[in-house]
């Protein structure tokens, strides 16, 4: 029995596509299986979703030859203002992070989902990656030589490794018997984008409101992306509002720093949770992105964690292949888990802590956290660390994230 491809990547989201591309660049034969049809992924309409790509992620996309296509549509995030207020109150900044304090340039670049998707799709095509879409993976069976991946249309692919990038409800992880730990937040994340009157000057604002954190993130031109957290009940009510009332609710929370605003693209609403896969691998199966970890979106680190997974996994597998090791062996996959799982857990817990200490309206807690945030703002080392974390530059940074080839 032959081998059809070295690695099957399951899932055509940002992480799946980036992984397929990085693995191909490292010399592997890759087959990408996506449940969605290519035209849906290639839709060039801005749909309201955007990501903060940290400096490390940008360097990696640059090394993969994708950033060039993304750069003209990326907005540099040069300042971060963190504040605390109730709806209707002005929010005086408690913390101000200025990118000039760190050596690595802007903290992050805001990139719209469709820009990243389309740049990755054309890079995949140029790299000669077998891209099967739409296909559903119906099952997998790991053996001593290969994993047989069964597609719902009856086809079977034999590969050395199956990389599951199929999201937080990963069917592949479930079939491999990998459980998850974590909790739901009984909150929803509301996401939309606004066009506005006055320039944002590259400033990202994070306001801690009683319902949860509210982020205003700069996009190119006079546009911002909003990511805000509300309790499930309130979010359901907000989701049901017509656009004009929805905008009024937004204005009630953030005031009027941007002048007149209007909605662009769709309104999105996601259940929020913190969860971590108990293991990052099973027999010839490895998890990356949301299939491995889901965290609170308040720090905008979900995608950056996924990109770090891609960089670390590609490096581990490329080194293993160069040595002649079996890329599906537990001894190899355990190195990736050791590299990434602790980081993801730590980031998830940090976001968890921030979210729980700020998502309430207790006056004593408000006073305490005001004091706490003031203190956190003081020592330069702590600030540097926080900024490094936001830029994805703490710990053992994979080569791709330093902008180097693997």
């Amino acid at each position: 029995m032959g081998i059809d491809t070295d690695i099957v990547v399951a899932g055509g989201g940002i992480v799946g596509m980036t992984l397929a591309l990085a693995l191909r660049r490292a010399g592997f034969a890759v087959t990408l299986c996506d449940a969605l049809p290519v035209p849906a992924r290639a839709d060039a309409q801005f749909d309201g979703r955007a990501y903060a790509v940290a400096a490390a992620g940008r360097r990696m996309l640059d090394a993969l030859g994708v950033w060039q296509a993304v750069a003209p549509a990326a907005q540099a995030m040069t300042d971060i203002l963190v504040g605390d207020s109730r709806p209707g109150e002005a929010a005086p900044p408690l913390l101000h992070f200025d990118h000039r304090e760190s050596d690595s340039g802007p903290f992050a670049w805001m990139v719209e989902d469709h820009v990243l998707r389309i740049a990755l799709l054309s890079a995949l095509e140029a790299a000669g990656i077998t891209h099967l879409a739409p296909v559903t993976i119906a099952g997998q069976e790991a053996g001593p030589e290969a994993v047989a991946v069964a597609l719902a249309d009856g086809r079977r692919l034999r590969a050395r490794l199956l990389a599951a990038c199929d999201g937080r409800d990963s069917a592949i992880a479930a079939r491999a018997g990998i459980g998850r730990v974590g909790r739901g937040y009984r909150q929803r994340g509301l996401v939309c984008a606004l066009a506005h009157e006055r320039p944002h000057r590259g400033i990202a604002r994070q306001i801690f409101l009683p319902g949860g954190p509210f982020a205003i993130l700069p996009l190119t031109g006079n546009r911002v992306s909003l990511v805000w957290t509300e309790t499930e009940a309130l979010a359901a009510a907000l989701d049901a509002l017509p656009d004009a009332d929805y905008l009024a609710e937004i204005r009630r929370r953030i005031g009027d720093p941007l002048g007149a605003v209007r909605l662009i693209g769709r309104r999105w609403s996601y259940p929020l949770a913190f969860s971590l896969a108990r293991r990052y691998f099973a027999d010839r199966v490895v998890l990356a992105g949301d299939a491995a970890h889901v965290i609170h979106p308040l720090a905008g680190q979900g995608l950056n964690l996924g990109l770090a997974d891609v960089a670390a996994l590609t490096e581990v597998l490329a080194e293993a292949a160069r040595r002649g090791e079996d890329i599906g062996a537990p001894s190899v996959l355990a190195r990736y888990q050791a590299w990434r799982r602790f980081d993801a857990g730590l980031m998830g817990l940090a976001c968890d802590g921030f979210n729980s200490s700020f998502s309430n309206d207790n006056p004593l807690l408000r006073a305490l956290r005001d004091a706490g945030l003031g203190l956190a703002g003081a020592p330069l080392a702590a600030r540097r660390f926080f900024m490094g974390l936001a830029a994805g530059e703490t710990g053992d940074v994979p080569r791709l994230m330093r902008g180097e080839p693997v």
Partner: protein
Amino acid sequence: MQGAVDEREVAKFEAMAAEWWDPEGKFRPLHMLNPCRLDYITGQISAHFARAPRAAGWLAGLRILDIGCGGGLLCEPMARLGADVVGVDAAERNIPVARLHAERAGLAIDYRHGTAEGLAAAGERFDVVLNMEVVEHVPDPAAYLAACAGLLRPGGLMITSTINRTARSFALAIVGAEYVLRWLPRGTHDWRRFITPQELGAMLQAAGLGPVDRKGFVFDPLRWSWTISDRDLAVNYVIAAERPAA
């Protein structure tokens, strides 16, 4: 019935192979050291035979012998990179285990029960001889290394790793690995049999080989992994030596 006996045997070998290849099991120390050993071996072969290590099957055409092959932890990677591999082990029980694992993995490897001396007497010759963590276990290292050297074709390369005889190697390899961490069964190593890099170099030269490189394998407790060191040869170390071209 013959078939029933074979099935029982196969089940036993499968269990033993699973043990050899379990990264968290009995052979965990070897699994931890393996990436570092393989990096060194592939690096030396690449430099010595002037082959770029990127293309698939870049070891094709090289005949490689692994002495003390065990479950095949070195043989399988070498075969996967395209080499023509012979694995030899003095422990007969390892051979069917290694053979079964390689067969299941779709790799063709020639596993034999025997010794370096036996292969030398039979006139076998190789481009590369891997002599990893064996020399500290043999009663007469000089005679053993001479037999190994005889297995090399002119221009061939032998890679020998072992443990240095220092205070630190006593603390780490005996007290640490056998008593504190229990990575190895007590009595695995006898410190007095450990060989210094100077002694090993001299024995290799006496066997007609020219040492071309030596490095340390160093365990980093913070990263919990092994790395190759240019300077620190105080505990685990390796010497690459060539047989001069005729």
